[in-house]
């Protein structure tokens, strides 16, 4: 008896954590599929849900706004990943060059990322405001026309990329810094003796050793940009019209703005497929 109990003990310790994860993280993934094949809206949510076959997916693929959102997602993700990665990498490398008080700089650079995305969004909404924003003021001071940062459909997505760059770059900086610290400095000493320049040792020693860190970092910031919509929701609500509605925000708006929960769930399923594809492509790159 006590033997059985002893064997069960570790599982008992794990039960509370697993119960919570099962109910609120794992089960909903399957429940989402169920919802996407039924007719669920704010009107029908408390009634019997009728099976609706592929209708939600057909609706989704007949909705021009859905294609717009996919296109915008590509722009937002490409812009965010490229800018966060380039600047984050640059800062990580610069701060590793025996800079004085590097720790203090790092602690300050990381502040945007420790505060919440909503706070970043409010701040940028204020700074980019067409009438009262400081950025338009500065533009006018130097003799340029004010820009509709959040109101011009062609520009708004790049304003969101800018806010996301401010908010997200510190993560890449920290992650790449962790990678740089994992490299044994004696490798560089050997390279210096062999007469390698800094640039050459960076290209031929640092980069190859950083490769796994770079790939994992790219996976994380890509998936994160795909799923993330705090900034869009607060700064523009996805507008004007659908001009800044990325796929994840499209899912949210269908469900909670228009009350079409099952159409949102169908979009969520497409989002899961996008996530898996992103992870898959990068992991292929990592293995190569």
């Amino acid at each position, binding site marked *: 008896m006590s033997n059985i109990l002893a064997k069960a003990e570790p599982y008992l310790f794990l039960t509370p954590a697993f119960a919570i994860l099962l109910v609120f993280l794992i089960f909903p993934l399957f429940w989402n599929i169920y919802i996407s094949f039924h007719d669920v809206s704010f009107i029908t949510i408390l009634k019997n849900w009728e099976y609706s076959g592929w209708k939600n997916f057909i609706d989704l693929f007949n909705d021009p706004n859905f294609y717009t959102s996919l296109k915008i997602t590509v722009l937002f993700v490409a812009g965010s990943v490229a800018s966060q990665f380039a600047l984050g990498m640059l800062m990580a490398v610069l701060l590793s060059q025996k800079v004085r008080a590097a720790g203090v700089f790092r602690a300050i650079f990381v502040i945007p990322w420790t*505060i919440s995305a909503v706070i970043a969004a409010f*701040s940028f909404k204020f700074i980019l405001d067409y009438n009262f924003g400081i950025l338009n003021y500065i533009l006018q001071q130097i003799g340029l026309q004010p820009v509709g940062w959040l109101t011009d459909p062609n520009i708004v997505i790049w304003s969101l990329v800018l806010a996301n760059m401010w908010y997200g770059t510190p*993560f890449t900086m920290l992650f790449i810094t962790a990678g740089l610290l994992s490299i044994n400095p004696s490798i560089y000493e050997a390279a210096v003796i062999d007469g390698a320049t800094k640039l050459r040792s960076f290209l031929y020693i640092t980069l190859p050793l950083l490769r796994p860190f770079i790939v994992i970092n790219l996976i994380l910031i890509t998936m994160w940009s795909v799923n993330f919509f705090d900034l869009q929701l607060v700064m523009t609500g996805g507008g004007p019209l659908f001009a800044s509605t990325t796929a994840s925000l499209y899912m949210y708006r269908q469900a*909670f703005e228009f009350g079409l929960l099952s159409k949102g*769930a169908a979009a969520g399923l497409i989002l899961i497929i996008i996530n898996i594809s992103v992870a898959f492509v990068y992991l292929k790159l990592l293995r190569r």
Partner: protein
Amino acid sequence: MIGAMQKATIRNNRVWFFAERTFIYALIAIVLFLTIAPLVWVFSTSFKQNEESISFPPKFLPENATLDNYKFVLTDPGLLHSLMNSFIVSIGSTVLSVTVSALGGYAFARFEFKAKNLIMSVILGLFMIPVVINIIPLYTMLSAAGMLNSSLALILTFQILIIPLNILLLKNYFETIPKDLEESALIDGCSRLGVLRRITMPLSMPGFAIAAVLAFRFSWNEFILPIVLANKPDSMVFQVALYQFISLYRIEWGYLTAGITLAIIPVLILMLAFQKQMIRGLTLGAIRE
């Protein structure tokens, strides 16, 4: 001849060195400015009177610095209530996640069992699931359970953001504590749970502290789950109340910037106090976001 050449190379190297240093520090200065300028601007605006906060041209420093904005936010019954909700939810979620993760982390650190590696890789895999994908199913589930718009709904759902990370953190911490201490207590007839509570936990306080700080930070900052699951005046948290604030009224930037500043303060204090551990934990935890 050789001497002259060497001198020239050295001089050349020094010029190159100074150019490089100047370049590095100039870039750092620019990024430093871009990092803190938005926050300084928000902070400065929070002390301006409302007309001044949207005056054009903007004033960089408040002309007649005032605490009116803070007074407004902290006396508005709705906002104050949401601030209380934020604390209740964040503290509740922190206590729950640390308790549950300590039990789980302890199982991984101290027991040998069949499915150990399998369960560990499942937990690592769970890290990768983006939580936003769950908002619609969670909404229908909690709606069916009659739990929408309750603090409990937020406390429970926030766990999925925190538990996988905290189990890993606490497991790693427990593994640094020598087993001998526990073994003698076990021989004296203490139960495993008693050992965890009386011996391991007091010795792991730094680990618990960082787990709690991270849990608080995630709960305090979370926005999407609360806006979906608890957006009624009674149950909304501070961030959601600020959001409602911009969609309901003409934006009063003075009030809003004061609210933003108040929302940043708790996290910034924790960040400054636990800087190193928090950065390490967040880098690990970022897999979650």
